[in-house]
């Protein structure tokens, strides 16, 4: 009941968790194990660790890790420590570990797996939840996306103190967020429409035009936005137009950045101050990294699902540089490669295409059906050797394929 026992309990748990975590710090991509142990000792650990902090959750199908990083950078303008699970460990153990590693940080920006949003929101009493987008992804293990949206909506209805910062251009996101008590709408764009032909509220057809989307039957339509992504600039809540000028490439990252600016505003960080910090982000957990390999430049892009591939194509070298496409189907990737058929590969017809990965043959058949000439290679080194010295190789890979390639080129770098 009283404050003292509660605080003592927090201190004990924190001390124990922090101790375990400090031993683990610096090993691999971090301290998930510490979080697992901590949660086993104290199931309420996440809630204890989050108490008295301002917590931001970041979720959606694509862009979670990058947006988490951008928000963390933006909030660093406040001059105080910001806890974050920067490496994408986005389930409860990873979140607990991130908080435990920064016990003094008054702010926390936590990438959160879509399925865990309701329980993590409840445990952390998050001040802000950032909703990026929802589309088909690893359906052999993830829930159907309409069901995910419904669970989010119910969780927001039960959290009156939480502000949801939501992408108004994604109808399923808009429907989930419209259950919240406080919403900041952001027109962050939506390139992938294949999962949102129907109204999330009534199931009828959505109509799309330059102004957004609107249900033909019920009243549901794109909410008017406080923040708007307009090409390479942002129109902020005061109507000012600012060039984003990010170091990170592509439309998807401009969208992530505008979401981050809207979150920063909640904490009193101006767009100018936030952007100054965000422009220093050049790569995120290996994504967008450029490495030299045998005299060639290799650029790494991660794409885990059809919407992600669409965004990765947008970032390809405009000079028709060769591209290596690599696909695995391990558990973290999803065991099912059917999604390859939702990606339109015809856009890479005009450049040399190499194919690798444990499911390279799935990709080969897919490219053949799209009439894309390609060459099956044994791995990153063979692809690099086919590029002229001094040239560039773009690499697009899904999750474990990306990690394998990153490890291979990382050893040489």
């Amino acid at each position, binding site marked *: 009941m009283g404050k003292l026992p509660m605080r003592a309990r927090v201190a004990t748990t924190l001390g124990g968790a922090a101790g375990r975590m400090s031993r683990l710090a610096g090993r691999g991509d971090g301290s998930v194990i510490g979080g697992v142990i901590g949660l086993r000792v104290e199931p309420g650990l996440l809630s204890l660790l989050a108490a008295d902090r301002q917590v931001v959750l970041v979720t959606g199908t694509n862009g979670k890790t990058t947006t988490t990083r951008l928000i963390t950078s933006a909030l660093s303008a406040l001059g105080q420590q910001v806890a974050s699970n920067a490496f994408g460990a986005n389930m409860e153990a990873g979140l607990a570990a991130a908080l435990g590693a920064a016990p003094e940080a008054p702010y926390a920006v936590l990438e959160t797996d879509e399925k865990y949003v309701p329980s993590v929101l409840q445990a952390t009493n998050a001040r802000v939840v950032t909703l990026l987008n929802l589309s*088909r992804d690893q*359906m*052999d*293990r993830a829930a*159907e*996306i*309409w*069901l995910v949206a419904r669970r989010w909506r119910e969780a927001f209805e039960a959290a009156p103190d939480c502000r949801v910062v939501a992408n108004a251009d994604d109808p399923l996101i808009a429907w989930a967020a419209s259950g919240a008590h406080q919403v900041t709408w952001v027109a962050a764009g939506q390139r992938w429409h*294949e999962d949102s*032909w*129907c109204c999330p509220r009534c*199931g009828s*057809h959505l109509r799309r035009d330059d102004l957004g989307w609107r249900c*033909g039957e019920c009243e549901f339509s794109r909410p008017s936005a406080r923040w708007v992504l307009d090409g390479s600039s942002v129109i902020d809540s005061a109507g000012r137009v600012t060039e984003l000028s990010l170091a990170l490439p592509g439309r998807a990252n401009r969208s992530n950045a505008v979401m981050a600016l809207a979150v920063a505003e909640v904490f009193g960080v101006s767009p100018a101050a936030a952007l100054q910090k965000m422009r220093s982000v050049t790569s995120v957990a290996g994504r967008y990294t450029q490495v030299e390999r045998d005299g060639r430049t290799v650029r790494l892009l991660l794409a885990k699902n059809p919407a992600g591939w669409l965004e990765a194509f947008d970032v390809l070298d405009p000079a028709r540089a060769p591209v290596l496409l690599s696909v695995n189907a391990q558990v973290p990737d999803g*065991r*099912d*490669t*059917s*999604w*390859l*058929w*939702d990606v339109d590969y015809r856009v890479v017809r005009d450049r040399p295409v190499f194919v690798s990965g444990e499911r390279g*043959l*799935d990709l*080969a*058949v*897919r490219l*053949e*059906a*799209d009439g894309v000439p390609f060459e099956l290679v044994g791995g990153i080194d063979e692809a690099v050797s086919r590029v002229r010295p001094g040239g560039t190789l773009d690499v697009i890979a899904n999750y474990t394929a990306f990690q394998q390639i990153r490890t291979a080129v990382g050893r040489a770098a």
Partner: protein
Amino acid sequence: MGAHARGPSNLRLVWVYPDLLSTYGDRGNLLVLERRARLRGIGVEAIQVNADQPVPRHGDIYLLGGGEDLPQVLAARRLRTDAGLAAAAAQGSVVFAVCAGYQLIGAEFGGDKGQPVAGLEILDIRSGRGERRGVGEILADVDPELGVPRLSGFENHQGVTRIGPGARPLARVLTGVGNGDGTEGAYAGRVLGTYLHGPALVRNPALADLLLSWAVGTLPPLDGEYEAWTARFREQRLAAVPVG
């Protein structure tokens, strides 16, 4: 009429309701049929019909994909009202339906709360909800009548399907769940359904050719790059999945 109503050169492939019934790679079946027809010099007209458009009655092959619960119920309701698909099937057009699409061409299936929902009654099957979700690779041996080698695919569904006297099981399950009683899929005449979801025809080119031959008659075998990659891919998948 029906299958014979098409023009002299064009095979009409109709993808039914990709806006409601396309969760995971369903486009692959359309692309594979199109590719395999064109490689044989058959012209193709690929038509995508959204749920707010009428279903044309003179297609040669109709494709239905998978879908989440609510879109499946909505699709069934609209297709019953539209009546175009049932009319085409009655005239002898080919229907290939996958997963949610397979269930909804039957007499009945389980809705989003498990409630029975009326299907199109194009195929004599009844589906409901099973105890657990079947997710993973599936292998099944096809009814010898059809002359198609072993099916390889991926399934992801919670459906259980009983086949009535008016239809036959498509295959017998070696690995996986299928209809839930050891059989997989069903067919009658030129209507064929399966739980192999998404791009089922990619791994099973002989099944794709069976559907094409129902529409256009006997086909010459394919060779060349496309067929070589398809064969390698199929062999790899068959070798990767243990029987039983």
